[in-house]
């Protein structure tokens, strides 16, 4: 118990990165469901958000000069980096003419992404309020965990928060949008943590020492697309310049063996690595969060299907330094998983057990020093595949939780 501070990183479509700071007085669990939250200060009337494309070093330099002018009170959403990355800046009303003159002088291309930010935020607030009027906002018990939900329905999940400097565990689900049992399980994990803290001895001991971060809809654009257009969509939904094909595989976009065999260089491929490591905002947000947190001790990224528990590496055959320990822990975890319904899992390194994959999440997290880096492939083994029936959500979530507890408990007892 006690006051703790948690930083939830929220990611949205290649446009903005939002950070919310929350203070809580409960236990220290932080549940982040990927979201873009409205600003809490209502002074954005007639502010515009400009997307600026610099085409050479001279223009980049001009932009940096602009950013340095404090009196303009520019709010950089996506900062100056290189010519291929657009710059997004919120410009207060009183600075608009100055900024636009500056851009015109240097012949820098820009577009107005948001014409009046306050209007946009008010509309969004109204939408959110309308949604919360429909369903009980804070009642975890009213939510049906045994059905698949859309993002709008999942938004009414309460969360509580934890501290940043404490050792932490990261869990994510839904990085590949078609793997619906994972987002559904993630939702149940959140509920289960909230319900059993204070009652389950092992979980309480873990949370009294460590924080848990849980990102449920890690690929929200993809998830929305699986509901509206294509149930089998895997990747992000970012357009690829020069190609009619959309999206990047967010599990090939990490800076670990990036560019090597085990990912595709074609935008039309399901395993397209992207133009560069961390090009996808969904990935970059997690990378930034992990690096700035600096005290992550375990990192679990959850996928489906195949019924496997995997650890690094995917990009190379060379065994991880901690191969022995990771292997033993995996064996224990899947034994506990099987104890519930007899579900059989295989385990091992990614590259031995399933295939070579470069630019993968847990290869990166492991090389950042997060020893207990694991990937799950949940039910089933191909009969239903991605379209697992809803009546398997709860059994899957519950058995997987046993494996997660094994890993989290071990991390908690084996500090490094």
């Amino acid at each position, binding site marked *: 118990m006690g006051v703790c501070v948690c930083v939830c990183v929220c990611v949205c479509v290649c446009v903005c990165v939002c950070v919310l700071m929350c203070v809580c007085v409960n236990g220290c669990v932080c549940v982040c469901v990927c979201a873009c939250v409205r600003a809490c200060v209502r002074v954005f009337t007639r502010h515009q958000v400009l997307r600026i494309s610099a085409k050479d070093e001279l223009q980049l330099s001009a932009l940096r000069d602009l950013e340095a002018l404090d009196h303009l009170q520019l709010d950089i959403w996506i900062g100056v980096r290189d010519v291929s990355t657009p710059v997004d800046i919120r410009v207060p009303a009183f600075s608009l003419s100055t900024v636009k003159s500056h851009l015109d002088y240097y012949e820098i291309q820009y577009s107005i*992404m948001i014409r009046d930010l306050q209007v946009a935020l008010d509309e969004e607030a109204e939408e959110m309020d309308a949604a919360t009027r429909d369903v009980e906002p804070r009642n975890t018990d009213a939510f049906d965990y045994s059905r698949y939900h859309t993002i709008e329905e999942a938004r009414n999940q309460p969360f509580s928060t934890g501290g940043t400097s404490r050792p932490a565990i990261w869990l994510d689900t839904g990085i590949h949008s078609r793997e619906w049992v994972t987002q559904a399980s993630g939702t149940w994990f959140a509920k289960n943590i909230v319900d059993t803290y204070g009652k389950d001895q092992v979980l309480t001991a873990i949370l009294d020492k460590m924080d848990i971060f849980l990102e449920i809809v890690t690929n929200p654009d993809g998830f929305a697309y699986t509901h509206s257009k294509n149930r089998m969509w895997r990747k992000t939904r970012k357009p690829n310049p020069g190609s009619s094909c959309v999206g990047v595989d967010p599990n090939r976009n990490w800076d670990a063996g990036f560019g090597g065999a085990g990912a595709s260089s074609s935008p039309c491929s399901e395993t397209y690595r992207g133009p560069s490591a961390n090009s996808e905002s969904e990935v970059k947000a997690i990378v930034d969060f992990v690096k700035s947190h600096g005290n992550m001790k375990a990192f679990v990224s959850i996928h489906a299907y195949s019924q496997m528990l995997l650890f690094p590496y995917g990009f190379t055959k060379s065994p991880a330094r901690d191969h022995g320990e990771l292997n033993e822990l995996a064996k224990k975890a899947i034994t506990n998983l099987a104890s519930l319904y007899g579900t059989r899992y295989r385990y091992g390194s990614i590259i031995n057990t399933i295939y070579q994959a470069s630019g993968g999440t847990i290869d990166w997290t492991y090389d950042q020093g997060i020893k207990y880096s694991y990937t799950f492939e949940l039910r089933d083994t191909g009969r239903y595949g991605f379209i697992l029936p809803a009546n398997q959500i709860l059994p899957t979530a519950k058995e997987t939780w046993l494996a997660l507890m094994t890993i989290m408990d071990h991390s908690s007892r084996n500090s490094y």
Partner: protein
Amino acid sequence: MSPALMRVLRVVVLLSAVRGAPLATVTLPPVILEPVPLEPVPVPSEPVRVDSGADQNISIPINTEQQQQQQQVSLDVDVMLTGELNPNHYPARRAAQVVLHHLNTRYGSPYWWGALRQVHKATAEALGDSGRKYSLEVTLQDQISGTKETCTAEVVFPGGPAGGPPQVTTSYEGKSEINTQAQEEALYNQYNTSQNLLSGHNLPDSYGHVAPGMEPFWHLGGVASSFVMLKESSENTLYNMAQVVSVTQLATENNQLRFNYDVLLHEMVSQEIIHWKLLASWSPQEGVKASQMELLPKCHHCEPPQEH
């Protein structure tokens, strides 16, 4: 407001504020990532003993020729193992999956749909120009009744540029369950004499649901798809049927019920969803046959009919 931002703002999960907690927004400075140089890792000179979930430890003998190949600092690991294989690793599993596709083409029906349950033993050998041969001991399971059976099998992946489908032989002698015969006869008679030709789509649907009356046609689609998956398989693929997009019955011909199938296959290594059309014919006596198999091009802008 731009559609992009509208979409952005709609992608929201409400973070309900804890009572009494003030909220503030903070912008994190952008973090510039330094590229991490990859260090070449020395290759171990003795076989690596790895326990990956097999009941006994299996050491993977790597012959010296492969060791030399592996010493190149290369991220491409298409070095084919020979000798005893770890039955839980992917090379054995991919070969075993091919066995299951083969068995489905021989023994599958609307009431028998085999799946791989476990690989017990596996070895691989190079056949020179003729390709590579896997010898396996597997347990297969009927996905409908749950009945399991163990058998041995050999899979030859042909070599050379012509390639060609894998060749499979097994010790499996046919279903031990014989009570599917009554169900098969009943289904056959129902759809042979029925005035209305059957049609259906999205089996299962997005939520994993299949109407009870449509289940045999889901299974039949899976079995018929095995004909495609068998001929498309290599050591670098692992196929499952992801979904029956549509099934349309045609008039019975030569005492065979006939169905046009439109299916989505999931190939695990590339993660691609591959669209095939095929004509499935079936009778209890003749079993399942597939013909007129046609690959449909990947459509990047198509929105397949998705009725939820």
